[in-house]
């Protein structure tokens, strides 16, 4: 049998994974090893595979993914910090046949936008909220987030998060799962190929539930921040598995009855 060379492997017909047609050629501003790029790619693939481009309106947050609209080829609105679910509410109410999603970080969704998050979920708006939880403010340079773990060091908790004075990390997926308006709440990760496949599966379920207008879908992605955590990408993924996953366990918190 002939030996398989590197050049054989990279032939287009041999590629198992390709860039989604909906990913633009713009150079990403994300740090090496960051989960955002992977999450974007998975989302773009699902929009492409589900043929949703012409009816998708995305809402971007303030935070690292503020410039997400540069990377995925769909219509986008850029919201003020924390307000994405309010924009999404109006978009969906005014154009009920659209697929509407928000993509938000932990500061955006769980601190400044807590009210919008909870009330949008409570009204059961037929939108998908994608929540990237990396336990830190990445864009502004590594400050403490509402989801920063107890004892975790950040630029504004340099001695570690002291829960007696800084409060405990907030588990947003658990909170919104309690609200009758949400139909699907799940926690995923994108640090392994298996994780990405599961995340995509969750996105596809959310698309189905959105098509069926069953209420708000909420997908949390527990992710890393190598720059903010001051680790290499490999170290950050290991640290995330050892520290973030036990506190924010992966899996479904709420699934609709069939």
């Amino acid at each position, binding site marked *: 049998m002939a030996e398989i060379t590197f050049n054989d492997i990279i032939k287009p017909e041999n590629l198992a994974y390709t860039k989604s047609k909906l990913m633009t050629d713009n150079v990403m501003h994300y740090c090496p090893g960051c989960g955002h790029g992977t999450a974007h790619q998975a989302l773009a693939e699902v929009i492409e595979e589900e043929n949703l481009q*012409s009816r*998708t309106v995305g809402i971007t947050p303030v935070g690292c993914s503020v410039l997400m609209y540069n990377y995925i080829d769909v*219509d986008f*609105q850029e919201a003020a910090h924390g307000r994405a679910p*309010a924009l999404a*509410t109006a*978009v969906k109410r*005014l154009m009920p046949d659209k697929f509407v999603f928000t993509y938000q970080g932990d500061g955006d969704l769980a601190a400044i936008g807590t*009210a919008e998050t909870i009330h949008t979920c409570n009204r059961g708006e037929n939108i998908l909220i994608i929540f990237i939880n990396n336990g830190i403010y990445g864009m502004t340079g590594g400050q403490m987030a509402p989801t920063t773990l107890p004892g975790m060091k950040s630029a504004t908790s340099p001695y570690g998060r002291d829960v007696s004075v800084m409060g405990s990390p907030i588990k947003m997926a658990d909170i919104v799962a309690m609200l009758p308006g949400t139909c699907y709440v799940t926690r995923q990760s994108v640090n392994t190929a298996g994780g990405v496949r599961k995340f995509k599966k969750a996105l596809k379920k959310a698309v189905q539930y959105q098509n069926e207008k069953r209420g708000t879908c909420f997908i949390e992605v527990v992710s890393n921040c190598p720059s903010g955590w001051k680790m290499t990408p490999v170290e950050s993924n290991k640290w995330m598995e050892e520290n973030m996953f036990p506190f924010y366990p992966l899996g479904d918190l709420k699934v609709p009855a069939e």
Partner: protein
Amino acid sequence: MEKELKLMKGNEAIAEAAIRAGADGYFGYPITPQSEILEYLMEANPQATTGMVVLQAESEVAAINMVYGGAACGKKVMTSSSSPGISLKQEGITYIAGAELPCLIVNVVRGGPGLGTIQPAQSDYFQATKGGGHGDYHLLVLAPSSVQEMADFVELGFDLAFKYRNPVMILSDGAIGQMMEKVWLNPQKKRSEEILPWATTGKPASRPRNIITSLDLDSERQEKFNLKLIAKYREMEEKEVRFEEFMTEDAEYLFVAYGTSARLCQKALQLARAEGIKAGLLRPITLFPFPKKRLNELADRVKGMLAVEMSAGQMVEDVMLSVNGKTRVSHYGRMGGMIPTPEEVVENLKSFIKG
């Protein structure tokens, strides 16, 4: 279809006019003295007739951001509130101005600062006309002085908002919001089904994706954008100045007043004339753009101008800038929900004349 005559509160007229203007959505939060707008719309339930969406938001902040989302889809959307609530909306308003989106915002002003009072005032003039939120921007501001104008300015406001892709504010007050007058209402307009080329409605194959944002990290491009906004405001100053004059032909002294103050100045004008004082009134209808040119012209032939406002003196600064030292300018105002009587306005005009 003919116009319809009704007896209504100013707030109700706004709500009914919004339905009839073919508005696509209203997003609000209760606050006195304008809660009738949301109440009226909820009872009218236009979703069942015209398809207009009416939603009570969890806060004024959420309501204005719903307006942002709806406006970004090219929809005819609006919100309303009163002073403390309008302060909360300022974040959303500056984003809407920065993203160049059309929308209508109604402020039924009450006295401040802080919670202040629920009684009428005109103390939000600076906030309304000078931007209100952060950054260099302006709203186009319409000041109704009757229930009829509350209704008329809804449709006018939407038209101007879409013409300039800029937020428009109706700056009213608790008196006009609460009082009842007869009002001629326009026949029902159909909601527009037009898909605007810049709107985020889902990207078809025929166009590049639409992005609605107020962000540009490149300073040179951002400055160009700021210059574009300024050009838009200059165009408004050229084309959209609206005002009304009363007995200015032979006036020696001019009241300058808008909204409720303009109404009581009309009475003050008659009282002054009866005493032999040749008084006139200029009522700005647009507060931005302000009738600078006309005031400057009138400054050549009057002996003085008295700005009458229910505030500590805000519009008077624009009057002074307009006349640029050509004539004497002073201010008379009451605050905290107090409305001056025509008699006390005349007394103040007399002491102004004495100097």
